[in-house]
């Protein structure tokens, strides 16, 4: 038995079987339980360490698996990362039934997660680009329902994500050349340019994020939310893999400035676009653009603060996207349109669901006492120490996103006619969103609850944590 078989093989094998149950809530429950089990196992079960079962019997979970002459390795250092990925996936799967998309999201999502975990574990690691591309292809049926004609968003998503792969594979090859010949500045520039282009496509860096708001209009908000949580997270881990592996890249003088500029551009453009939206889905799309921008900013501080600021974002951002997309999915299921003019006065009809949407929005922009506040404050402070101009631009982006939040709030409480307060939506939908709001508040008030995970996560990238 080997670790890749448990955390990659088992979910991949089980994912087709998750189509079998007839009831969506059973699928969601099974998917959630499997993901939770894998998360707990990753936290407690030692890899590559003999476990004594009896006086004569011992068991050791091997850390590698060989496929076609290459290895997939899950080392003990990767276990906190697996806990985070499968733990958050469990939350998404449990909520899938309430969002009305369990039948598609759970089986497809399970296989996507397994493939993306494989992408982080494959050796040589640059093959990850190929596995990520496979996962992206599997995501298409999730994002484009069979009963609906594909729109521009899904086509752009497919094109942009596919374009990332050639750039990343080539840059990986060039980087090996740079490693053996570090003095070759031309080669270094070419490798860095290709790498930047690859990650610009993969992470939907400005101006390549046009598919995000389009997709938020076309597809189920919960399905898009799942992809917008998972794909950038894995892409960032992949990028950290590059940084961890290549010393010249870590020491590249311009890298923090490039990451900072890209992050600021994402926050400013995403925030300003969000301020002018009249569609709740598109608003969330631009907020996720801002999320990616903040992660880039946090990454730009790696030379001074290692990865602490970056990992601080992981749980709050995921939680906000989860609650936000669940709220939007419930509104879509029950009301159809997410346009402002159709959603006036929803606060009276769906108070808990709208509260979820508003709390997630405020958490994303870092309102004090909410989960997003500690990481945004830490990152903003770090950026301000480097350059005040960038910090001011971040303020512009955050203020714009705040404008979007206030406009949403105003529309939700603005009813054209007299409304009676009523709690609509199913009990499960209201409970799940209520629990989400509770955790957004809890992580804002007590961010130290994440510290057991946060202290272990950076060790996955040993060269970056010193």
């Amino acid at each position, binding site marked *: 038995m080997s670790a890749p078989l448990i955390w990659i093989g088992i979910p991949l094998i089980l994912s087709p079987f998750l189509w079998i149950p007839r009831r969506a809530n059973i699928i969601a429950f099974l998917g959630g339980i499997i993901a939770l089990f894998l998360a707990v196992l990753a936290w407690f079960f030692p890899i590559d360490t003999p476990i004594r079962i009896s006086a004569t019997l011992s068991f050791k979970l091997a850390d590698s698996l060989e496929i076609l002459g290459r290895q997939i390795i899950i080392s003990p250092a990767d276990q906190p990362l697996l806990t985070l990925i499968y733990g958050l996936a469990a939350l998404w799967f449990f909520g899938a039934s309430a969002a009305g998309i369990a039948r598609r999201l759970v089986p497809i999502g399970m296989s996507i997660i397994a493939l993306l975990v494989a992408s982080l574990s494959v050796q040589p690691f640059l093959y990850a680009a190929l596995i990520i591309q496979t996962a992206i*292809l599997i995501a298409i049926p999730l994002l484009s329902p069979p009963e609906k004609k594909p729109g521009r968003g899904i086509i752009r998503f497919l094109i942009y994500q*596919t374009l990332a792969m*050639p750039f990343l594979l080539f840059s990986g090859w060039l980087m090996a050349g740079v490693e053996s010949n570090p003095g070759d500045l031309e*080669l270094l520039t070419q490798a860095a340019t290709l790498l930047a282009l690859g990650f610009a496509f993969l992470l939907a860096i400005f101006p390549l994020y046009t598919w995000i708001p389009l997709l938020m209009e076309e597809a189920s908000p919960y399905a898009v939310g799942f992809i917008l949580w998972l794909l950038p997270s894995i892409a960032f881990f992949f990028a950290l893999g590059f940084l961890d592996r290549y010393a010249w890249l870590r020491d590249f003088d311009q890298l923090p400035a490039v990451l900072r500029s890209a992050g600021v551009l994402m926050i400013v453009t995403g925030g300003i676009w969000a301020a002018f939206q009249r569609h709740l889905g598109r608003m969330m799309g631009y907020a996720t653009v801002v999320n990616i921008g903040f992660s880039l900013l946090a990454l730009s501080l790696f030379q001074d603060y290692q990865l602490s600021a970056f990992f601080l974002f992981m749980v709050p951002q995921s939680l906000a996207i989860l609650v936000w997309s669940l709220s939007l999915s419930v509104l879509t299921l029950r009301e159809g349109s997410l346009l402002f003019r159709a959603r006036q006065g929803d606060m009276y009809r769906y108070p808990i669901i709208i509260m979820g949407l508003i709390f997630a929005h405020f958490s994303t922009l870092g309102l004090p006492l909410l989960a997003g506040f500690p990481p945004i404050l830490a990152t903003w402070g770090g950026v301000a120490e480097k350059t005040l101009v960038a910090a001011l631009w971040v303020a512009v982006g955050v203020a714009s996103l705040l404008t979007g939040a206030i406009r949403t709030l105003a529309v939700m409480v603005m009813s054209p006619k007299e409304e009676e307060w009523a709690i609509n939506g199913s009990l499960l939908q209201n409970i799940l969103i209520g629990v989400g709001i509770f955790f957004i508040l809890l992580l804002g008030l007590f961010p130290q609850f994440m510290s057991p995970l946060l202290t272990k996560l950076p060790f996955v990238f040993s060269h970056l944590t010193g």
Partner: protein
Amino acid sequence: MNFLVISWGATILLFAFTLSLLLTRDWRWILALLAAQYIAVFWLTQIHWTVSMAAVKLVTGWMSATVLGITRSTLDPKLASAPDDNSWPQGRFFRILTAMLIFLLVASAAPSIPKLLPGIGLPEVTGSLTLMTMGLLMLGLTTQPLRVVIGLLTLLAGFEILYAAVENATLVAALLAVINLGLALVGSYLLLAGTEDTGGSR
């Protein structure tokens, strides 16, 4: 010498095939051209890979064309075209002119690539760049799922020729084959999506 002549022949054929792909509107011709394109891709790949491994590309390409062809043949012509695909110029003159510009770009850029990738010949580089740039052009001119997937397959075929010169691992060949077939399947799925009442999908 003969080997080089055939390689240049394959490169010229690639340009002709991709230009025809850009101009043709009949899906039967489009898929036939795509399948033919993979013969030239096979030739340019086998320069650096073994014939058996290069044959994987040929078979995968043909399988992709077949999957797309079978799906397209089942569709009602009215349902198979995107209604809002007229945002870009559609004229043949425009497309030929753009293709010529691309050819000039490829001809000027190709000689610098062999310096970057030692061991690779000019025909492979020219063929590869032709496929990649024409694939990009196809992607820029349409939002129809069939044409988009063909554009992506063309672009990837170009990349694979270049990448074959630097990487010959079996796992890479296998994963690239999976991605090509996956793209064809995704194209089929997108072609079929929304064409009939498929019932509840939750």
